[in-house]
């Protein structure tokens, strides 16, 4: 017999709230995995709040959510939803899995219908509920469209609507922000926040630290263990008065950051347009401008700490500034021609133009970023430039090799890191390195030297015999980078190189890239982490197959500031403002044409 729920209240918040879900000492291992996916995790979700479940890929977020939804059974520990076993409370549970759980061959309306029936929503309430949900999600115009033909953001809203046909007490959202552009993510956040007013307890899992910052309470998960729990401000607070912003220095910003990160009093640093943001080690004084020895113009100002600073702090700080990979790399001879060039590059798929009139020239030794929502045409542009897709129109060249006439030479001069790290999962780490050395036609002695260097630099020594498919994501990413740079190419193509990776590994990655760029390597990168766009010298914002804005990150932020009137917009603000402006422009022009 299920026991009656004891009156259960939240722990230390001022005003006691009802606990909707409670997990105690959860342990869960999977067959074939060395370490448990969860090693003793306890947590609660309270009514009317958004609880954030934060951590890098593979931290155990999905396992924890599935345990809460009763889809998995814990090896040890207990889950209680409103005091009952999850299987007894399915009526009170709304669960949105990572892939939204929609039927792509049913229409929006049919999906809603199905879930309404499965959750036994009274027939007479259908119309009213659907009307409310369709308005809430702004999908009313699309109710007869097949779910498979919706954009990622719209699918996600429909997935949310399907879990809301009968208002649940607990909502479990598994990485609702993944693979969705910042605009849709913001809209979704606003919708979910609206739900808390109805007393629903929401668990929102995410790898985006900026989302974590907005939660009422956060559980920080890493490798199956909790690193932190509490209001996000508590974690951010650990970095209080330890964040500074340095600007006006003379050397190139990448060289300045490298040098600065090697200082003992600096724990972490990132590039922010023309300035550099630093996290000081605990107990160190704010350094003077002179101590950076970077010219008279150097200014030091206090910065606002973020959740990410707290995260890095709790993990023991970011990597040092000097990249062993870059130290080992050849110096690319100077060349006045642009390393990567696109002129009117266009690609059509039937009647659909995936990329139109792409125009840019990237000088040697710079990082150029392609930003944009999913499906905007970033990857198409990218694939044309690395010779994987033939352009329908226009001219493209890599290291002076015309893509139409000498695509093979163009490909030989670049290193390519594909989305999701294209490694051979069934081959061991050593075999992957051997394969790529062979594929890039390295001589035997060169191959051996390159392989040894990569093993040393990326710390792969004790993983050589592991299948690369079984590596943790961070190691996969390192191995993928190692394979892409073994032949020391003058040009690097990186397609979403840091997605899903924890912030420390991301920083290590950018340390290497910064070092390589100082050696004269040219980098073309796509990313959906807006703060990473700050590492780029120039970025191009791609939307609906066209470049809607191009310039330095600071210029784009200024441009967005002029549109919205915001004082100090972040890169993400800029992204959203510029895309909205483009939509508005399109709408007005469209209306005029009609």
């Amino acid at each position, binding site marked *: 017999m299920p026991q009656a729920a004891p*009156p259960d209240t939240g722990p230390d918040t001022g005003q006691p709230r009802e606990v909707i879900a409670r997990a105690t000492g959860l342990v869960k291992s999977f067959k074939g995995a060395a370490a448990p996916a969860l090693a003793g995790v306890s947590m609660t979700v309270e009514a009317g709040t958004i609880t954030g479940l934060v951590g890098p890929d593979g931290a155990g977020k999905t396992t924890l959510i599935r345990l809460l939804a009763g889809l998995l059974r814990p090896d040890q520990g207990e889950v209680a939803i409103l005091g009952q076993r999850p299987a*007894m409370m399915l*009526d009170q*549970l709304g669960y949105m*899995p990572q892939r939204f*759980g929609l039927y792509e*061959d049913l229409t929006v309306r049919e999906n809603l*219908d199905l879930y309404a*029936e499965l959750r036994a929503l009274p027939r007479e309430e259908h119309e009213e509920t659907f009307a409310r949900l369709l308005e809430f999600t702004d999908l009313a115009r699309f109710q007869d469209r097949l779910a498979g033909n919706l954009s990622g953001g719209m699918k996600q809203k429909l997935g949310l609507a399907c879990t809301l046909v009968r208002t649940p007490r607990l909502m479990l959202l598994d990485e609702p922000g993944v693979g969705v552009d910042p605009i849709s993510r913001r809209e979704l956040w606003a919708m979910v926040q609206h739900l808390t007013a109805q007393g629903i307890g929401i668990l929102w899992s995410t790898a985006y630290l900026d989302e974590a910052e907005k939660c009422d309470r956060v559980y920080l998960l890493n490798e199956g263990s909790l690193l932190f729990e509490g209001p996000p401000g508590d974690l951010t607070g650990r970095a209080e008065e330890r964040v500074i912003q340095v600007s006006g220095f003379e050397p190139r910003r990448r060289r300045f950051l490298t040098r600065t990160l090697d200082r003992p009093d600096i724990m972490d640093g990132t590039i922010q347009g023309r300035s550099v943001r630093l996290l000081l080690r605990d107990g160190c004084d704010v350094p003077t401008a002179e101590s950076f020895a970077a010219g008279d113009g150097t200014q030091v100002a206090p910065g606002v700490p973020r959740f990410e600073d707290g995260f890095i702090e709790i993990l023991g700080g970011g990597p040092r500034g000097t990249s062993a990979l870059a130290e080992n790399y050849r110096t690319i001879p100077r060349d006045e021609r642009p390393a990567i060039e696109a002129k009117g590059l266009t690609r059509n798929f039937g009647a659909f133009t995936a990329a139109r009139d792409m125009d840019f020239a990237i000088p040697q030794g710079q990082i150029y970023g392609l930003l944009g929502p999913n499906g905007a045409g970033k990857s198409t542009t990218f694939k044309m430039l690395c010779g994987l897709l033939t352009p329908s129109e226009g001219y493209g060249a890599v290291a002076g090799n015309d893509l139409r006439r000498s695509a093979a030479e163009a490909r030989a001069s670049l290193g390519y890191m594909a989305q999701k790290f294209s490694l051979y999962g069934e081959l061991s780490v050593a075999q992957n390195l051997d394969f790529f050395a062979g594929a890039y036609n390295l001589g035997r002695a060169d191959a051996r030297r390159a392989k040894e260097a990569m093993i040393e630099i990326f710390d792969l020594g004790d993983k050589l015999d592991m299948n690369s498919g079984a590596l943790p994501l961070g190691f996969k990413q390192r191995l993928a980078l190692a394979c892409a740079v073994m032949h020391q190419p003058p040009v690097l193509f990186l397609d979403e190189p840091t997605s899903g990776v924890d912030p420390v590994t991301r920083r290590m990655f950018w340390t290497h890239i910064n070092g390589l760029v100082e050696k004269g390597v040219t980098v073309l990168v796509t990313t959906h982490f807006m703060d990473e766009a700050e590492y780029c010298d120039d970025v191009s914002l791609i939307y609906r197959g066209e470049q809607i804005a191009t310039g330095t990150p600071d210029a784009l932020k200024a441009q967005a500031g002029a549109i919205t009137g915001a004082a100090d917009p972040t890169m993400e603000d800029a992204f959203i403002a510029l895309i909205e402006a483009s939509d508005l422009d399109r709408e007005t022009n469209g209306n005029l044409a009609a």
Partner: protein
Amino acid sequence: MNEAPEPPPASGPIRFSSRRLRAMMAKEFAQIVRDPSTFLIALAMPLLLLFLFGYAVSLDTQGTRVAVVVEDSSAPALALSGAYAASPYFHTLPMRNRAEARHLMVSSQISAIIVIPQDFGKDLHDGRLPEIQIVTDGSQPNTATFVASHAQGVFQSWAANEGMPGMLDKAPQIELSPRFWYNPALKSRNFLVPGSIAVVMTMIGTLLTALVVAREWERGTMEALLATPLSMAEFVASKILPYYLLALASMSLCTVIGVAIFGLPFRGSLLALYVIASAFLMPALGLGLFISSATKNQFVASQMALLSSFLPTFLLSGFVYEISSMPVWIQAITYAVPARYLIPSLQTLFLTGDIWGHFLPNIAIMLGFGFLFFFLSFWVTRRSLD
């Protein structure tokens, strides 16, 4: 003020709800109608199979191409060669020498060479038993056996007609006149069409069911369904019923085409047809469900469905190959193929009529297999992702 909120009523364990089942079935039908591949398997494939077996593939040996080399120019030799030309089993190519015929045999243009030798007429005239030579292409053993025995038969009946003294001694005292019951013309079409009905029902029952359940796992919709109050029984029923109906519809289509277009006799009753078909669909659907619950992957499920149901139905059910002519240990395996019990029943139903004494044991065995597979699939399916 700090009054504990009323604990909400537990929704309790899941109970069967016909409303959820209806919603799931409506969804399934919408998917069937919209998915071109389902339609292809359920409608286009049966038609293709029927026309293939009805017209293109025939196991009858009619009009086999043979060379007749006549080295003798006597009247009996020409008469015998005429008898071969008149046989419906052969399409003869008259030739003057063996070398030419051998050339055609090597290039597989003919299946046999019949040689009427130089002294055929002389032997006959002298009262000796004349001899002919029959050379067959051993690389196609079945055809070779047919052709050899037919060629001999033609020779013997010709000799008997001629009233050959030497032959008469050897002629049997009793005349055997074979009669084939129920399929008097021995048309292979008449047993191939019931066989293709078995194949079609296997495809829909096992392959489609295996695919659609695995698809729910692959596309992540299963995860979402498991988080609703849907019970496993409702889920299974929502997968079984639509494909059961689809398979029966497809079977009906095959029967109508078989009778209307191919002139197949239908001597049994519709009731028997649907009872037998339903009995067979239990193991077919059960196996499909078991495969997809065990693999959760469309590719693996389709491979396993082909190997464990489609091929045995094709090869080991007596559909194409006679079971009694298989090696004993393979015959033993055929007892584990549900279609083995379907095809004789269907053949009886079409060609003879309702013989319930023959149907009932087969129906019982098929239902037994069905229960086994359903039991296995409930055993491997749990309401969790573990």
